[in-house]
C-alpha cells in the first residue's frame, strides 16, 4: 500500500491493523445497534448477546477450518453432513455403546465420545482430501458427494431415530444447564488473555529491536493494547452481567450449598464453555496460520500452487491434511451442537455448510485463494448469527430470514471485491 495521506489512513497504517477487519467489527456493531433500535432495546442485552455467542460457536469452529480450505482454492460442502453423521455416532456411543463398556455415568465417558468424534472427523476429512489430492477429483464434487453420503450415513446409524439424552458432563460442552464457568473464572480467563496480549506486543517489539527493524510508534502499541483489552474485557463483562433467573439461581445455590440471602441471589453465568472452545480454536488456528510452517504452506499453496510445489512443498499431502483438520473441527462442532440439543438427530447440521462458507467469505476469505483470516471468519459467523437472531426478535418468518441472509452474503462479497479493487 502506498503512503496514505489522510489522517485516518496514517493512523491505521501506524497501527498495522487490518482495515478490512476493522470494517467488519464496525459492521457488526452497526447491525447490533440497528436491531437494538428496531426491537426497542432488546437486542443489545447480556442475555441476547450471550445466546448469540452460544448459537454461533459451532459454526465458528468449523469456519476457522473452512478458511484453510478456501485459501487453498478448495471448498468443503460436506461439513454440515459430517457434523450430522458424527453427531449420530457420538450420540449412540454415549447412550448405547460406552455405558456398557465403561460403566454407566463414567466420568471420562464424555471425553471418549468427544475424542472419538474428532478422530472420526479427521478420517472422513482425510479420505475426502486424499480423493481430491491424489485422484484429482475437484473438491466441489468430492464434498458435494460427501454432503449426500454423510447425511445418508447419519440416517443409517439408527435408521433415522433420535438418540437422547446425552451424558451430563458431555452436555456442558453445549453451554446449557451449567455449561458456563461462572463469574470469577471468567474474570481470570479475561485477565490471562489481557496479559497474553501485552506480552505478545512487548516481545514482538523486542524482537524487532533486536534486529534494528522499523518499530511502531509507542502510542500505537498502547492503542493496540487498549483495543485488545477492551474487547476481551467487554466479552467477559457481557457474560458476567447475565444473571441466572431467580429460580435457577436458587436451585444452583442449594446444589452448591450457598446460603440464599434475603434479597435473593445474583449469580452470573460467566463465559459459556462452547464459546471458550470456539475462542480457543480460533486462537490455535490463528497461531497455526501465522506462526507455523503448515500455515505458511497453506497460504503459499493458495497464492501460487505451482510455486509451492517448486519450493518442495508436498501440496498433495497438504491438501489431505487441510481437509483432515476440517474434519476434526466438524467433529468438535458436532459435539457442541449435539450437547446443546441434548440429542443426536440425523438432521443436525443441515445447511450448516452454507453458514460456514458464508462466515468465512463474509470474513474476507477470498474464493480466488491465498487470502483469509481466522478472526475474520469468526466475526463472519457472529454477523450471520446476529442477523438471524435479530430477525427472529423482530418476528421475521423463516423464509424471509433466509432471503435476507442470502442478499447479505452477496452484498458482503461485492463490498469485498470493491475494497480489494481499490486497494490494488
Amino acid at each position, binding site marked *: *500500500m502506498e503512503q496514505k495521506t489522510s489522517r485516518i489512513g496514517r493512523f491505521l497504517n501506524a497501527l498495522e491493523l487490518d482495515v478490512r477487519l476493522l470494517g467488519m467489527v464496525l459492521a457488526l456493531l452497526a447491525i447490533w445497534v440497528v436491531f437494538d433500535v428496531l426491537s426497542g432495546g432488546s437486542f443489545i442485552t447480556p442475555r441476547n448477546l450471550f445466546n448469540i455467542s452460544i448459537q454461533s460457536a459451532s459454526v465458528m469452529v468449523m469456519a476457522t477450518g473452512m478458511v484453510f480450505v478456501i485459501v487453498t482454492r478448495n471448498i468443503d460442502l460436506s461439513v454440515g453432513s459430517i457434523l450430522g453423521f458424527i453427531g449420530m455416532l457420538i450420540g449412540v456411543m454415549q447412550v448405547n455403546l460406552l455405558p456398557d463398556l465403561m460403566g454407566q455415568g463414567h466420568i471420562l465417558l464424555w471425553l471418549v465420545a468427544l475424542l472419538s468424534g474428532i478422530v472420526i472427523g479427521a478420517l472422513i476429512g482425510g479420505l475426502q482430501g486424499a480423493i481430491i489430492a491424489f485422484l484429482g477429483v475437484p473438491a466441489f464434487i468430492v464434498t458435494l458427494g460427501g454432503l449426500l453420503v454423510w447425511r445418508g450415513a447419519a440416517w443409517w446409524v439408527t435408521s433415522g431415530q433420535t438418540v437422547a439424552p446425552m451424558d451430563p458432563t458431555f452436555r456442558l460442552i453445549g453451554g446449557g444447564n451449567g455449561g458456563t464457568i461462572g463469574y470469577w473464572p471468567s474474570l481470570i480467563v479475561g485477565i490471562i488473555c489481557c496479559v497474553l496480549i501485552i506480552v505478545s506486543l512487548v516481545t514482538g517489539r523486542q*524482537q*524487532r529491536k*533486536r*534486529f534494528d*527493524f522499523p518499530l511502531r510508534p509507542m502510542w500505537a502499541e498502547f492503542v493496540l493494547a487498549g483495543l485488545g483489552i477492551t474487547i476481551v474485557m467487554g466479552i467477559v463483562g457481557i457474560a458476567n452481567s447475565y444473571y441466572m433467573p431467580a429460580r435457577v439461581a436458587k436451585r444452583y445455590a442449594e446444589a452448591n450449598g450457598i446460603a440464599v440471602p434475603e434479597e435473593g441471589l445474583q449469580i452470573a453465568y460467566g463465559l459459556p464453555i462452547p464459546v471458550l472452545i470456539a475462542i480457543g480454536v480460533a486462537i490455535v488456528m490463528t497461531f497455526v496460520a*501465522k*506462526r*507455523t*510452517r503448515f500455515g*505458511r504452506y497453506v*497460504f*503459499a*499453496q*493458495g*497464492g*501460487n500452487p*505451482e*510455486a*509451492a*510445489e*517448486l*519450493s*518442495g*512443498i508436498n501440496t498433495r499431502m497438504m491438501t489431505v491434511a487441510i481437509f483432515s483438520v476440517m474434519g476434526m473441527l466438524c467433529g468438535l462442532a458436532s459435539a457442541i451442537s449435539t450437547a446443546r440439543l441434548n440429542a443426536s438427530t440425523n438432521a443436525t447440521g443441515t445447511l450448516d455448510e452454507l453458514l460456514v462458507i458464508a462466515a468465512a467469505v463474509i470474513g474476507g476469505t477470498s474464493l480466488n485463494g*491465498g*487470502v483469509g483470516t481466522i478472526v475474520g471468519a469468526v466475526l463472519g459467523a457472529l454477523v450471520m448469527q446476529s442477523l438471524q437472531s435479530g430477525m427472529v426478535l423482530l418476528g421475521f418468518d423463516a423464509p424471509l430470514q433466509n432471503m435476507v441472509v442470502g442478499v447479505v452474503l452477496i452484498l458482503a462479497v461485492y463490498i469485498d471485491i470493491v475494497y480489494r479493487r481499490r486497494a490494488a
Partner: protein
Amino acid sequence: MQTQQNVPLVEMRDMAISFGGIHAVDGVDVDLYGGEVVAVLGHNGAGKSTLIKMLSGAYRGSRGDIKIHGEPAIINTPHDAKRYGIETIYQTLALADNIDAAGNLFLGRELQTRWGTLDDVAMEAETRKVMKRLNPNFTRFREPVKALSGGQRQSVAIARAVHFNAKILIMDEPTAALGPQETKQVSELILELKKQGIGIFLISHDIHDVFDLADRVAVMKNGKLVGSARTSEVTKDEVLGMIILGKVPENAIPGPGAEVD
C-alpha cells in the same frame, strides 16, 4: 581451461520429454563444469525452460540420465534437486504473490525458533542482508510480493536462488524484467558466483544478454540440440546463425538438431 579436465558438475544425456505428442525436448545432451557459465539459447518455444525444469525436478523426463559430480542422480522432485545443491530461478519466478519477500525467500526452508514456530524476524533479517547486496534500493520487505514491481520480484527470486549456497545455479531469463542498473548487478553477481566455483546455466533467447558472460553456449531448436560452442571460438553472428537457421559453424560441436547442407 583447467576445469575441463575435471569431472563435469552436471552431465545430462539424451534428455527427452513430450507434452501430448509435442516433443518439447528431444534427445538433448548438455554438460556443465564448476566455475563455468553455460548459456542455453534458442527461440521462443525451443524447449530451454523445459530442459532445465527436468534438472530442477519440476518435470520428470520420459528419457535421459543426469549425473552430478559423475554420480548418477535421481531427481524426481524439486526437493531432490535442492539436495544436490541445484537452485533455480524460474522464468515465471515461482513466487507466492500473497506472501512477503522473506516468506518467499525461505519458502520450503523456513527458519524456525527453538519452539518450532516460524522465526519471521530472523528470516526478514537474512532477507535484508541478501537484498542489500542484490538490490540496495529494495525496501518493501513487509508487503506481499504482489505489490512489487516486476524487477523487484525478480530480485526476490534471484535472492532465493543464491542464498542457499547453490553448487549449480539455473537462471531462466533472470534479467528479463530488470533495469540496466539491476542487470549489471546480476552480471556482477554471476561473475562472483563463478569465481566461487559454482556452475551456472544461463537461459536466454537473446544472445546479446549472455554472450559476454558465458564460457560456452548450447543452442536448442524445436526441442533438439543444434550444437554447442565456446564463446571464445565463435562469433555472435555465428551463434545467431545457430539459433535462427540451425547452421553450425566450424568451431562448434554439432548436435542432433543441426541443419546439414
